[in-house]
């Protein structure tokens, strides 16, 4: 099949839009930290994107999408983009590579949540390179590169498991290794720049259309379905989180936008398999679930600081299961539990379970290695003065 200009145009633009999600994550998180760490938070997302770009071009793409080795990882046949050219099936192979690259980039950016306000920049860079290589690349291979999960028939349309479970549970592991922020539980850590968070949230919602619909790899009906359910789930999550938190106090804008992200996360694996009405439910449930998980996390005294675990991790888990529940063969060719396909639900559960364990464990080990060798965390003094000054030599104003 030759190149199709419509499909190529669509995936090109989608790739750019997903790229914009990475600074979107930075702004989203940047608004939630104390003023002395805003720059650090935003800069880390750019840096994550830059280092993943180079890693992906050199080895990552091949590890994820090279020919399968034992269901676990891709071969290095495409090292340095060897043999990835401008031909392809409807869209150029090189474009597929780029579209996958921006996914890898944003995933690492989400991971910064767990180490906010206390990670050493140099260690983040080293850890980031290790993490994308040993956690992200295998998971991408399993789901999309011909690995065991895809062989089993596990469904993950746009990366609920690959992107969100991996970064959510990875962030949790990281948070446990790096330890709480000084004063956590004693100080109050309040979002100091909510307008930045809302700008970031807007870019995320915008980019997510490309993230999910673009995963159809063409401007077709499947993309349209993914687009529509993505929006519905986001709206639905925003509303239910808002209502759930309203029942306990005031409905914060942070809750509303977090609910939207929860809805976006949950629909991500499902968006090519479920229809609009299922999407209302998936998003609605995600909004409440992730809100409860956040409360649970706080109650447990865990400093997974900006809730990647509650939102991306648990939202991704819910999305993986929901795909197994609500999938309709009319949309993506596969039925889920409600259409009697128990097998699919079990595969989804298995896939999510293994991804959770793998992401958590390997992240934990990598974090320990970095911690033991170069130290993950800044000194207490550096933390006190803030990462903007101590890691970047910069500060907001005055």
């Amino acid at each position, binding site marked *: 099949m030759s190149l199709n200009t419509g499909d190529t145009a669509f995936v090109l633009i989608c790739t750019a839009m997903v790229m914009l999600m990475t600074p979107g994550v930075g702004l989203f998180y940047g608004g939630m930290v104390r003023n*002395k760490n805003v720059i650090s938070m935003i800069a880390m997302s750019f840096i994550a994107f830059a280092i993943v770009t180079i890693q992906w071009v050199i080895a990552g793409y091949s590890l994820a999408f090279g020919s399968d080795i034992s269901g676990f990882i891709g071969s290095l046949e495409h090292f340095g983009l060897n043999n990835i050219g401008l031909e392809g099936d409807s869209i150029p192979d090189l474009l597929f590579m780029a579209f996958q690259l921006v996914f890898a980039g944003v995933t690492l950016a989400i991971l910064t949540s767990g180490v906010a306000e206390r990670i050493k920049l140099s260690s983040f860079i080293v850890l980031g390179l290790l993490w994308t290589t040993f956690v992200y690349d295998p998971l991408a291979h399993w789901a999309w590169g011909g690995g065991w999960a895809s062989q089993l028939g596990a469904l993950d349309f746009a990366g609920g498991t690959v992107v969100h479970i991996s970064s959510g549970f990875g962030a949790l592991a990281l948070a446990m290794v790096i330890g709480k922020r000084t004063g956590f539980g004693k*100080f109050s850590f309040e979002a100091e720049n909510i307008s930045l968070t809302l700008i970031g949230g807007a870019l995320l919602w915008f980019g997510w259309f490309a993230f999910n619909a673009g995963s159809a790899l063409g401007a077709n009906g499947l993309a349209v379905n993914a687009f529509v359910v993505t929006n519905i789930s986001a709206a639905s999550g925003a509303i239910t989180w808002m209502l759930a938190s309203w029942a306990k106090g005031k409905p914060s804008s942070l809750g509303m936008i977090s609910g939207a992200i929860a809805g976006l996360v949950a629909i991500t694996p499902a968006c090519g398999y479920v229809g609009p009405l299922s999407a209302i439910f998936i998003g609605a449930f995600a909004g409440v679930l992730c809100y409860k998980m956040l409360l649970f996390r706080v109650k447990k005294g865990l400093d997974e600081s900006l809730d990647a675990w509650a939102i991306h991790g648990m939202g991704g888990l819910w999305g993986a299961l929901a795909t197994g529940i609500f999938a309709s063969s009319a949309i993506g060719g596969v039925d889920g539990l409600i259409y009697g396909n128990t097998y699919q639900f079990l595969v989804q559960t298995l896939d999510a379970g293994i991804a959770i364990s793998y992401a958590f464990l390997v992240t934990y080990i990598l974090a320990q290695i970095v911690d033991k060798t170069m130290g993950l965390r800044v000194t*207490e003094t550096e933390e006190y003065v803030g990462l903007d*000054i101590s890691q970047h030599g910069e*500060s907001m104003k005055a």
Partner: protein
Amino acid sequence: MKKINAIIRPEMLNDVKAALAEKGYFAMTVYEVKGRGSQKGICLQYRGKKIEVDMIPKVEIDMVVKDADVRPIIDIIRKSARTGKFGDGRIFVSPVELVAAIRTDDEISEEQ
């Protein structure tokens, strides 16, 4: 009347406000500031050289209160803002000669 001028960690503001409110001390004005303390700034080790850092975000609380309230307020602030680490902050007390409301013509002057 005295003005109490407390420079504290931004993270402790909520606790301090609550502790003060509990004892009936509500009125205050809050500033976002940056500051450096007396221990010759804070030194970051940076590749051999020491870099002195200053200007860390702080919050300043100003309260104009009766003379008799100065001591209890200082105690409350100390208790609620203390972490025992560098950077806890400092309290200054200075004289205020006149307090005038704007909404009404109320005024309080000098020693009270």
